[in-house]
């Protein structure tokens, strides 16, 4: 099972072999179980990333499989000093871009913007507000929609970093490796993205609109 938290830090003990160790064992000694363990480890994490990226469960599944097929095909090129996680995310991101290019679907969440089935499903999967009072549930739903809108309004280059660093828990350095960007660029872009989100999500100043309050429904 996945031994990482969404933020990428180990939850379980460090006795488990590292990703690098697993891939090295598979590429050098041909240990099939090591690769299988690697797939299981990233099953949830990578699937969620691809699901957010592509907004479609079938596409996410296809790209997940093609990502590991690529990793399998390229594992002989693996440099033991290299971190596996950023490499895997890089392959997955490239595969997702290829998939979108092939299918000409511009209904993605993170790269292209726009509401998708995936987002709807994401909301459905969130803790159901059923236990809350109707007022609080409605407010929570409204807040979620506002966050999604704010994310959608981000440019793809900023949105991608929020996905990788916040939602997937990659470090700055790993995100820089995934996107092949300088470390400073990654830091400044994420900062810019968070500032935009802060502005978009800041509660408006309380200025009641008399016109609205006085408005009466048409008979």
């Amino acid at each position: 099972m996945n031994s990482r938290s969404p933020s990428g830090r180990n939850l379980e003990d460090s006795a488990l072999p590292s990703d690098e160790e697993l891939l090295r064992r598979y590429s050098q000694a041909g240990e099939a179980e090591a690769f299988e363990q690697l797939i299981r480890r990233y099953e949830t994490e990578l699937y969620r990333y691809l699901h957010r990226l592509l907004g479609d469960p079938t596409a996410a599944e296809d790209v997940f499989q093609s990502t590991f097929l690529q990793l399998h095909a390229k594992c002989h090129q693996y440099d033991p000093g290299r971190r596996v996680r950023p490499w895997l995310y890089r392959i997955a991101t490239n595969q997702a871009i290829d998939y979108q290019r092939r299918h000409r679907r511009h209904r993605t969440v993170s790269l292209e913007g726009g509401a998708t089935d995936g987002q709807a499903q994401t909301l459905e999967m969130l803790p159901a507000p059923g236990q809350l009072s109707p007022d609080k549930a409605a407010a929570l739903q409204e807040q979620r929609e506002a966050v999604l809108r704010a994310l959608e309004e981000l440019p793809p280059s900023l949105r991608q970093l929020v996905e990788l660093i916040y939602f997937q828990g990659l470090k700055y350095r790993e995100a820089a490796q995934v996107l092949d960007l300088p470390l400073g660029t990654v830091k400044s872009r994420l900062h810019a993205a968070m500032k935009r989100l802060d502005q978009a999500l800041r509660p408006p100043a309380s200025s009641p609109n008399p016109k609205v309050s006085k408005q009466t429904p048409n008979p």
Partner: protein
Amino acid sequence: MKPEEEQLLLGYLLGALEPEEEEQVAQKLQSDPHWQHQAARWQTVLNQLALVRSQVSPPRGLALRTWQLLQVPSSAPASVASGGFASRWSTLDLITATVVLAVLVLMVVPALSWQRFRSQVVHCSDNLRYLGQALQHYHAVHQHFPEVPASGPLAHPGVFASLLFENRLLDDPRRLLCQMSAQRARKLCLLTPQQLRQLSQQQCAQVLVQMAGDYGYCLGYLTAQGQYVPFRCQRDGLLPLMADAPDRALTGRPGRNHGPWGYNLLFANGQVRFVSTPYCQECDHIFLNHRGQVGPGCDRRDAVIAPGNADIRLAAE
């Protein structure tokens, strides 16, 4: 706060820093109230983002299916296989396509080869028919077909072309070629016997070999008195006059023009027939006389068609 400091603080809150950077920011947060205030502000944004954190679970057995896919790469689904790292074609597809292609090739190639062969045979027989008319005209004037001398510089089968040319019955050297070849046609020149005699014996022999083209021509025959005479038109008209040149050795090897399939044969009456063996229904071996030699016939029914490069002088003696 400076932008670099804010980036560090954000990285700390997101867990995106390296351990030494984390320690540095943690110390700063403990001592600096301004950092604490800014951290609280960013934390508010992050808490809001947490509302849309995906809780989607992967389809059941995704890891297992992926693993199985790696075990049998050829069974990859089309959507995965089209990712550029696996072939779109399975082994079965490739075998099927190869078999279909092979069947098509087996059907088309023989048909094309047969058509090519037929057109060549027709072209060749047209030439022979043309030469047959020229020979008949020659016979009408001289009461015999062009004579191949038994000795001397002109003792080559190709002399028939020279005699036809001299009598203005042949002006296009391409008629002497079975296969159309512009290059060979340019090299081929027609000379009269008089012009040939002015050449050295070796040059004359070379020109006569060329003038025979791709065909063989019938030599004369020996009378009962041992006299060598040219053939004359016979009553039934089934005297073989010309044919596709045989192989020089005549050891059963295929002819030069149509390979193992046979020979076009021109009779004295102008008829052209394609025969699959050197034996025709009306005559014996068309390239050898009754003694089994390439030389003059042993009687007036023993026509021998000799290729242009045959040395007939010795045989005649």
